[in-house]
């Protein structure tokens, strides 16, 4: 096996450890405190927001506006509609030079 393949496999192991690790740590505790439970329920909203936040400032006005539009659309419509409208917005706004 080449050094590169060994490196790739080590990276695969590192990635898998993060994907199973949280569960392995948590499953050592029999009962979960309500605060931990609340924190875990907040993971999707908190981490997704943290992932996306830089998109508000690090691209351009077109992208910032598209994120805001997508967020408003998401309050009423499905995910597919949200992505489609957000995408149309970013393409349209880029086309007009924002």
């Amino acid at each position: 096996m080449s050094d590169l393949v060994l490196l790739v496999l080590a990276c695969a192991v590192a990635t898998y450890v993060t994907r199973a690790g949280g569960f392995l740590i948590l499953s050592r505790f029999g009962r979960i405190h309500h605060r931990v439970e609340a924190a875990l329920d907040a993971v999707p909203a908190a981490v997704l927001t943290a992932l996306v936040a830089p998109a508000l400032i690090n691209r351009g006005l077109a992208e910032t506006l598209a994120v805001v539009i997508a967020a408003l659309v998401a309050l009423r419509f499905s995910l597919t509609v949200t992505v489609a409208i957000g995408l149309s917005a970013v393409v349209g706004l880029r086309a007009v030079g924002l």
Partner: protein
Amino acid sequence: MSQTIVDYSVPSMWRDALDGVRDALPVLMAIVPFAAVFGALAREAGFSFGDVMIASATIYAGASQYVMLELWGTQAPAWSIVLSVFVVNFRHILYSAAIGRRFTRLSPLKKTLAFFLLTDPQFATAERRMVTHGSIAPAYYFGYGLSLYTVWMISNALGALFGALIEDPAAFGFDFILPLYFVGLALGFRTRPNFVVIMLASGCASLLAYVSVGSPWHITVGGLAGLVLAAALSKPDDAVPLVEPSETAEPGRGGLNV
């Protein structure tokens, strides 16, 4: 939370699997260019076609693979490359802790596979399914995950083979699908306790970390800010409607079942 009793008849399993495939469709458009560009860049950096395929098949994480590629090009020592991959994926520890609560009745083999498939969209979509359906059928989880994995591998192969032909993904806005998808997914959790303040805390902390320490720390710092706030605001009853302790749960409710 709904009182869904999971029906194990074949039609129901297929319906769940098809739901999973259908829910994967919007993100597949984002994955194609992301994966194809990785394939193309890896070939340029000296990976063989086989190396590209092994990387995508075993790592199956866009951020990990891009970081690995980037550092490999700078001749960084192997241990520092592996450590960086671990750091960019740190948020998955939170995903795994949160979604592992739904996996309690999965067989060990399926659990192992379920964690392998645990990407950002996989986690968020599965948790979203928990909000809308009160349970996550294994067929749904794997229908979604295997759709992504298949398209990921095919797109990687195409990028590795025909990378030079890839047009600028920005021309169609494809480079921006993932942020839009994550915005839509995040808002799907607005019925959960303290959603607005958690989102504000995470958003502000993420931006602060982004402009001060830089990427990828904004993800971990922003995420943790929201979690700490959620824990601080929690009252003993808050957690009850979303997850039942396994000893009181009826079979077929509140999680993945097999």
